[in-house]
Each structure stands twice: as structure tokens, then as C-alpha cells.
């Protein structure tokens, strides 16, 4: 009966749908329409171009690497922030969101200035054969940077509400700390880790601003797919840009669906083992 008491259903839903339709759905329809104009042959030609393939591979494989690194480091940092008390903890906690608040272009030039061959750290790393900037590791580093808050922020509330009884039971039964962590705590965290992983991955796949400065953008080596879209646009190859954009969109949605299936499966598995 609440529908009758509370006003504004038609107005709010109508406004939201119209706005969403005009701002999001209409432009996406234009993308799909323009992309379909390229045809099957055009699509095959586009994807079989070694340069396009290399860029897509770097974007997706690099983002996967970055999300794996983020899952591991994010778990460590979230664990330390939630479980331990130490001076400066609150400042570190507030700083976690920095990659999210800092404009990507600023992050991009700052990271490049650090890791370039003559940069702050680069001048020490490069002579030892560790090249980060202007190479694939730089792309991954920037992707780790932008995706970092997602894993920490998804894990924190779950770690805070974790049931300590189970841990204590495990330890009173003689499990070591490492055993408790890997066999009791980690399985409970897997679904959450997957959520953070998926968010970090989605962000990294499409990332542009922070990557293009440090990447050096060498075709076939350190050129990401979004940059290739920009280049196609600059050459007025609208259909090619749209098709590449559509391929990226579909691939990332498929990836996100697979992860959400994995997540559902791991949640059921975590509940069964409990």
C-alpha cells in the first residue's frame, strides 16, 4: 500500500529513465550501430591486425595481472589496517582512496617521473635492468595504482565483521597461525576478494589517463587498446574505433559475468566448508 501513500513514483522514475536513456543508452546505441556497420569481414580484418591484437592482449592480460597483484597487496593492506593498531594508521587508511581521488592524468605524469630512466627511482632501477616506464611493466604498474582502492575497500568491512570464534577454535585445536589464515580465514574471504578483483579488473581494462604517459605507447609492445581507439578516431576511422570499442565492451562484460559466476560458486563453497 506504500505506493499510494508516498508520492512521486511516476515523476522520479520517468525522469530517471529519460535521463539515463538520453545520457547513457542513446550514445551506446550509436556505438553499437556504428560498430555493426563494419561487417563481419571488417571485424575479422580488425582483429587479425597484429597491432590491434597486441593492444587488446596488453589491455586484458595486463589488467588481469594488475588485478591479481591488487588482490594480494589489497588483502595484505586491508588486513594490517583492520587487525593492527599502529601510529599513522588512520592517515594510511584515508590515503587508500588517493588513486580514486587523484585525476588520472596527474597520476600518470607523477608515476612516469618516478619510473622513467632518469626518474626518481628509475635512475637506480634501469641500470640494474629493471625497466618499468615505457614498457609493459609500467602499464601494469599504472593499472595497479588505479585499481588499488577497490580491493582494500571491499575487503575492509568483511574483515571487520569476520567471526573470531572460528579462528580461535582452529587455534585451540592446534592450528598454527599460517594454517589458520590459509585454511580458515582465506576461504571465507574468497567471494569478497573476487568482488574486489572484478572491480579492479574492470577499472584497469578501460584505464587511459594514468597509463598513456608511463606506457610510452610503442605499437605492438606497450600500446593499450583504449589508445588505439583514440588513434583510430584521429585518423577519422570512426567505424574501426566503434568496432574496437564494442569488442572491448563485450569482452569486459563476458569477463565480469564469468567472475560473478565464480563468486557465486565460491560463496556456496565457503558456506559448505563452514
Amino acid at each position, binding site marked *: 500500500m506504500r505506493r499510494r501513500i*508516498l508520492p512521486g*513514483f511516476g515523476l522520479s522514475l520517468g525522469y530517471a529513465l529519460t535521463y539515463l536513456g538520453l*545520457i547513457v543508452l542513446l550514445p551506446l546505441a550509436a556505438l553499437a550501430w556504428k560498430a555493426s556497420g563494419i561487417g563481419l569481414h571488417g571485424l575479422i580484418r580488425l582483429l587479425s591486425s597484429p597491432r590491434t591484437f597486441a593492444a587488446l592482449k596488453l589491455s586484458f592480460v595486463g589488467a588481469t595481472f594488475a588485478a591479481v597483484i591488487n588482490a594480494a597487496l589489497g588483502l595484505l593492506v586491508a588486513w594490517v589496517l583492520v587487525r593492527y593498531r599502529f601510529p599513522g594508521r588512520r592517515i594510511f587508511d584515508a590515503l587508500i582512496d588517493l588513486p580514486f581521488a587523484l585525476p588520472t592524468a596527474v597520476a600518470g605524469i607523477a608515476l612516469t617521473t618516478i619510473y622513467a630512466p632518469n626518474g626518481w627511482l628509475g635512475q637506480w632501477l634501469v641500470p640494474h635492468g629493471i625497466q618499468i616506464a615505457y614498457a609493459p611493466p609500467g602499464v601494469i604498474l599504472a593499472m595497479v595504482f588505479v585499481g588499488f582502492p577497490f580491493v582494500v575497500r571491499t575487503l575492509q568491512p568483511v574483515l*571487520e565483521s569476520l567471526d573470531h570464534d572460528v579462528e580461535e577454535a582452529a587455534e585451540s585445536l592446534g592450528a598454527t597461525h599460517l594454517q589458520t589464515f590459509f585454511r580458515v580465514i582465506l576461504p571465507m574471504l574468497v567471494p569478497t576478494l573476487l568482488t574486489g578483483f572484478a572491480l579492479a579488473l*574492470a577499472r584497469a581494462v578501460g584505464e587511459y589517463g594514468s597509463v598513456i*604517459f608511463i606506457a610510452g605507447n610503442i605499437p605492438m609492445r606497450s600500446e593499450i587498446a583504449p589508445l588505439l581507439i583514440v588513434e583510430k578516431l584521429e585518423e577519422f576511422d570512426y567505424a574501426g574505433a566503434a568496432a574496437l570499442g564494442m569488442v572491448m565492451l563485450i569482452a569486459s562484460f563476458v569477463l565480469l559475468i564469468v567472475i560473478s559466476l565464480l563468486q557465486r560458486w565460491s560463496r556456496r563453497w565457503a558456506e559448505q566448508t563452514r
Partner: protein
Amino acid sequence: MTASATMLQKRRPHWPRKVGRALLILIAAAFLAVFLVLPLSVVFVEAFRQGIHLYLAAIKQPEALSAIRLTLLVAVISVPLNIVFGVAAAWAVARFEFRGKALLGAFIDLPFSISPVISGLTYVLLFGAQGWFGPWLDAHGVKIIFAVPGLVLATIFITLPFVARELIPLMQAQGSDEEEAARVLGAGGWQMFFRVTLPNIRWALLYGVLLCNARAMGEFGAVSVVSGHIRGLTTTMPLEVEMRYNEYDYVGAFAIASLLALLALLTLAIKTLLEWRYGDEIATRSPAGTSSRGH
């Protein structure tokens, strides 16, 4: 802090655990210092490398001032529009049952999972010279792509989810009892909204606006595609940073970047303050996008 957590702390840790704990804290702190604090310091150190005079000169250049003005203009238009949308969408989703609600939620989240470059691209395909409305716009002398309206539209697209995503979980958790009571007591629709709903969601709204604004002023990818990089006309601050950097004007690039970094720090400070002070009335402290998707 739960009761069992304090119990864990009270129990005296024996030495392997103590060492392990110190080691973990050290690794995490070192990582955060190199990974987050260092890039932030780089921005300010590089900006002031040639002294404060050159720093100020770099900011006072006409291109810089027009970039600052344009960034503010874009945010002033796009943020309020997304506030109205966010409140309307949250009202519909959190207060009513209807078919397709989950789908609406998914559509609201969509801009988060689309590459900013692709967002910009869709507007080029819509309003650009070869786009759906391109010829018509051209015939009527309206410029959207490579002009300010394109920048505004792309920014609206990118920042669309922020306010709605903050409000929906909070309003769902709060329930509608107070609003229903106001209605039963004879309040009109808008009266109920301004006297009951708005005060209940004000801190979450501010939180959402804060994140929305930070992203609107800092957006790069989407804006870069529709801008055309016309100096003094269509370059926002992040684009000005890029152009100066590519021209090897590092002091100039980092000077503008330092203003954006200050904005980021200010955003983080207010955000943290809101979380400490009004944590219960915000419902989430995650970066936008992680809050409603469950754990």
C-alpha cells in the same frame, strides 16, 4: 571493534606472532609510502622545482586560467544535473517496487564499467561530423564535439552513478516510515521531501556530490576524446596538464597538476571527516561502485 577483537588483542601474543605482526605492518607501510605517498610528493616537488616564481607564473598564464575556468564551468553544470538524477533515481529505486528495478540499477552502474575513452567515443558517434546528428547540427550551426557542450556531456556520462550509488543503499536501509508518517500527518509531497527525506540523506548526498565533483574536475579520458584540444577554448585542467607535459614544460604541467592534487587531498580530507563524524548516516565508506554490489 567487536568484543572478540579486543579479546584477541588482550591475549598476549607470543614472539613469532609479534614479529610477524611488525613485519606485516612494515611491509604495508613501506608499500603505501612508495606507491601512494611518493607520487603525491613528486607532484609538488616537481611543481616547485624552479622556484615559487615560475610556479606562480605557470598558473597565471592565460591558457592555465582559461583551463581552470572551463573545469569549474563543466563541474558546475554536470554535478547539479547528476544530483537531480541521483535523487530521483534513488527515490524510485529505494521507495517503490516495480518490474525491471534490478535492470535499472545495472544501467545506473554502467558508466563505471565502460572505459572513459569509449564513453567519449559514443558521443563523437552521436554528435560528431560523421555521427547520427552530425549533419543536422552542422546545418544549424550547433557545435557539440570539439566544443564545451561535448565536454559537459562526456563528464555527465562518467559521473552519472556517483550520487545515486551513495543514496540508494542508505535510503533502502532507512526505510520509509518517517516519510509515510509525514504524509499521514498531512504533509504535501515536496514538503515531505524537503522536511523529512532531504535532512535524512544530507550527509550521504554531500558525500556523493564530493566524489562526483572530484571525478568531474579530474576526468581525462572521456573529455580528451571530445575536446579536440583547442588551447584556451576546450582544454580543461587535466588536458592542459597533458599538453604541457608533452611539450616538455614540466614545471607548467606539474603546477596545474598540483592544483588538481590539492583538490584530491581536499576531497579526501572532507570525505574522511564525513566518515568519522557521520559514518552511520553515510552507510558506506567504499569508493563508489563497491558499496552496493555486496560482498
